[in-house]
């Protein structure tokens, strides 16, 4: 058995134990995504293979693993963002509330309306703070009560007090951490059900990172959050469930990402089932 190690601090491990007891048992969880044998290839190079897991409503689910393990590729399958890359092919199935996300008549625009995304690097539009948040509602035709909608989104993203007096100022004038919270507000403004976060804090300083993590904790009540992170403490702090991805090498040395283990975060960090997970979370690998 592996106990809390240098990677996961002692207090975190106590929280983990508490948190596991709070986790509802499987039969009470609502499945949002049911992923079955998912694979992604770029121009014939298999980037990810054989991933099967379930994502539950109002949970924070973290994907961790070494660089190149396909976790970012995986998260982009949920909102059809891989479709923008020429040569990308997605195999297997993802059911979203039982409906095939890659079915023949699925409109990516409808998918992205319900499944929002926050990117690694803050990427506000070169427009005013207000116009950034209002962009989603505008393109989706949700323009009734736009001002209230923008205010609500900024409040949910814990940014309202900092920007309420300068909504017309350029979004690029904000600090990096504020920009990332603006991107979260922009995503919340269209009231998605799921928020995908691709390493949302990796470009931020520790204080801004803490704010984003606190925010994830608060948002969990209303949203389902899937987060990719490089930072294992972050996964330990924010995630209810954690999936560990790794890399296998094929006969000719090609690297393919696979899902190694998926369990309650406390299990992954204290009693991992797989040796590879143990090596990774204890810092011996990756």
């Amino acid at each position, binding site marked *: 058995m592996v106990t809390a190690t240098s990677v996961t601090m002692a207090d975190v491990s106590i929280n983990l134990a508490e948190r596991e007891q709070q986790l509802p048992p499987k039969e009470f969880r609502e499945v949002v995504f049911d992923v079955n044998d998912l694979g992604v290839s770029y121009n014939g190079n298999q980037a990810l293979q054989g991933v099967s897991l379930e994502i539950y409503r109002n949970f924070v689910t973290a994907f961790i693993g070494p660089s190149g393990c396909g976790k970012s590729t995986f998260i982009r399958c949920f909102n059809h963002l891989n479709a923008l890359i*020429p040569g990308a092919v997605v195999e297997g199935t993802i059911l979203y509330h039982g409906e095939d996300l890659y079915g023949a008549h699925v409109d990516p625009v409808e998918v992205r309306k319900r499944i929002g995304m926050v990117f690694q690097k803050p990427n506000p539009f070169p427009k005013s703070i207000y116009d950034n948040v209002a962009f989603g509602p505008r*393109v989706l035709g949700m323009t009734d009560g736009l001002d209230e909608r923008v205010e609500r989104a900024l409040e949910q993203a814990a940014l309202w007090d900092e920007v309420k007096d300068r909504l017309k100022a350029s979004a690029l004038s904000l600090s990096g951490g504020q920009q990332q919270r603006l991107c979260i507000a922009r995503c919340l403004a269209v009231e998605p059900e799921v928020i995908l976060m691709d390493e949302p804090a990796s470009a931020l300083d520790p204080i801004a990172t803490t704010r984003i993590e606190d925010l994830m904790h608060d948002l969990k009540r209303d949203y389902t959050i899937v987060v990719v992170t490089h930072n294992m403490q972050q996964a330990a702090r924010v995630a209810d469930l954690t999936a560990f991805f790794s890399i296998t090498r094929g006969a000719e040395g090609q690297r393919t990402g696979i899902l190694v283990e998926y369990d309650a975060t406390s299990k992954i960090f204290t009693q991992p089932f797989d040796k590879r997970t143990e090596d990774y979370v204890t810092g011996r690998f990756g």
Partner: protein
Amino acid sequence: MSVSAGRLRSDGPRGRWSGRAFYGFLLFSLVIGFSTLGALVLQVVLKGYKWVDLVLLFEPPSAEPLIAGAEPAILATIYLGVLLLLFTVPLGVGTAIYLEEYADRDRWYNRLLEVNIQNLAAVPSIVYGILGLAFLVRGIGLGRVLLAGAMILTLLVLPTVIIAAREAIRAVPDSIRQAAYALGATKWQVVWRQVLPAATPGIATGSILALSRGLGETAPLLLVGALTYVSFNPTILGEFTALPVQIYQWVARPQEEFRVLAASGIIVLLAILLTLNAFAIWLRNRYERRW
């Protein structure tokens, strides 16, 4: 361990000399370029400034240099400029959007199109003039009218506008497109609401520079029949002259007074072009973005 004094001195002057020589060459190039341009402008201004007056701006040309003006030519140049912008900007930006946002690079016809545009930008303007004469003036029977001149200038500067617009569109980072897509925007909305507004300063700068190039052209206009002596104000479907053509005509006259008049015309043309260029630079600096 101690470092003996003198270690930090350079071993010899060689490295330094080659650096200085290169620096000298750079200065020399700069001086040649600037002094030639400066001498030209100075000479023209000294020669022609006295005749830049209301007569030049508001009178038709005449065989008598003292009362000869360039109003029809100045007006025609303005008309040409307006038509040129109306034609080139939608066509050029449309082509650029297609090539950058929609075209599949793996298709042979898209690659052919790209190579073609690059090459068209390098075709001498006189060739465009011949094309205009054969195709517009005679072929479709448009005649020697201002519209034909504007159309041929459009063809001339279109590749430049396309290239500038493509650069501007390419400079918009992909993260902006992805963010817009992730919010449920359609391709049209991404291009129209995010990419184009972000690329507008670059497109405007490129278009204005192309415009000023087009307005300075003489050769293609001569071929499509810009007349050297037009004493009436131009209409779009009428015969016309243009400022560079008018200057060309005056320079060719034997009388010394017309040469002075030509210098005055050059000052007016330079003023128009430099104003346009200055506006383009201002636009670029005002709206320049760092991502």
